[in-house]
């Protein structure tokens, strides 16, 4: 799998394009759910995007808001499966 920084940028772009409609940027520690950027359906789409694009598998037990609440949380969840570079 590609390096952590690349992955983070691609996930950020995906969220900005699909949920913020390119209208503004996203901070790494911005809560995605509390601020209403992503809902349950959004989470499923985000997980599908991650699985399809980075060749990782996310277990069903990992699908919970706490693991994907901010961009940093997403990266923490994926930590063991991506290269640190």
């Amino acid at each position, binding site marked *: 799998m590609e390096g952590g920084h690349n992955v983070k940028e691609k996930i950020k772009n995906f969220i900005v394009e*699909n949920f913020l*409609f390119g*209208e503004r940027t996203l901070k790494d520690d911005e809560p995605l*759910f509390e601020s*209403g950027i992503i*809902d*349950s*359906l959004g*989470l*499923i789409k985000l997980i*599908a995007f991650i*699985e399809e694009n980075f060749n990782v598998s996310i277990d*069903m*037990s990992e*699908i*919970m*808001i706490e693991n994907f609440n901010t961009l940093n949380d997403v990266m923490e969840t994926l930590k063991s499966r991506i290269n640190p570079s």
Partner: protein
Amino acid sequence: MENLFWYLVSLCLSIFIYWFILPRKWRSLFLFLMSLLFISLFNIKYVLYFLLHIILVYLASLYINQGKKKRRLILTLALLWLIGNLCFFKYSDLFFSTIVESGSGFSWIPKITFPTLLLPLGMSYIIFRLIHFAVEVYKKKIPQSSFIDFGLYVLFFPTFLAGPVERFQRFHAQTMEMTAPDLSSINQGLFRIILGVAKKFIVADYLARWIIPALHTPESHPRFLVLLFVYGAAIRIYLDFSGYTDMALGVSRLFGYKIMENFNRPFFQRNVAQFWRNWHISVYSWIRDYFFFPFFGYRASTLKIYLGIFMTMVLFMLWHKGNLNFLLLGIYHGLGLVVWQLFQEMKRKYPSIRKWSLRPYFNPVAIIFTFNFVSVSFLLFYLDLPHLYAVLVRIFS
């Protein structure tokens, strides 16, 4: 009123004992026993019934935690037991009465009467906490805890009757970290209790006495006033339930616990999805986490996701009560959520729609629309279909 007086006296006494007499290590046991005592005031049988559930789930969790081979089977059995009990008490009356009614047209079928089953108070919330605990233990997200700490989490008396359904990790962390009495917590707790009493017993009860009879005779009132009654009825439900939540959270604060909020300005949300994320948050998020995600959220097709959104809302409403009104509420809001998601898809596809949705007037209009969409549907909490129809005819004719 006398009951309320004695409740307040015993509450003050127990707060004093809790903070100033008992050493820290005895506080969980004290609150657990207080909770059992509180439940026994309603019915001593409830205490035994709930303790049975708690013991079974605790034993199951010990087994699952040890990582033995059949942990998935044990989890499944525990869930079946819990869901089976909840359904039995909540829907058996409906089931039996349907059987009796369907047989009433045939004279050769003997008349049968089934005993009425009384749903133990607070049962749904207790079952939700137990399911949450069992599943999270299975996922290895919950550390091993003592039976008393677990029992306290499930039966914590301020939230026993109607939630919120706090999550174990947050509750348990507070049990572990509890040290000295905190004056600002007690002040906040008292404020929430007073706020809750005012919302529930003054404003909501006053609105109920005035609005509910008027909604049953819409033809006797001017159209504009009937519309205000519709809004008032929705606001009354909010004040009644959020007032209860304020009291539950306030009493919890007096014992040093900060329990999750159940409402976050639901009538100021811009769409039906946001509304439900901010209404009865603890149960709605519970159903999302333990029904929607496991059954519809994992590598699902778009169609399955939409079906899941719809089914989750129907289930959420039928959980309130198994009757036609709540089925209709579920269908109405389930469709509302699906339409909202389709609109989101259109915003992604068509820049013109996206641009339109970003205009300055869009947000206030969306808030007003959402409030109306919800308020009309909340009439189903009060009215049967003919009365609901009469109200709508009065407003729109």
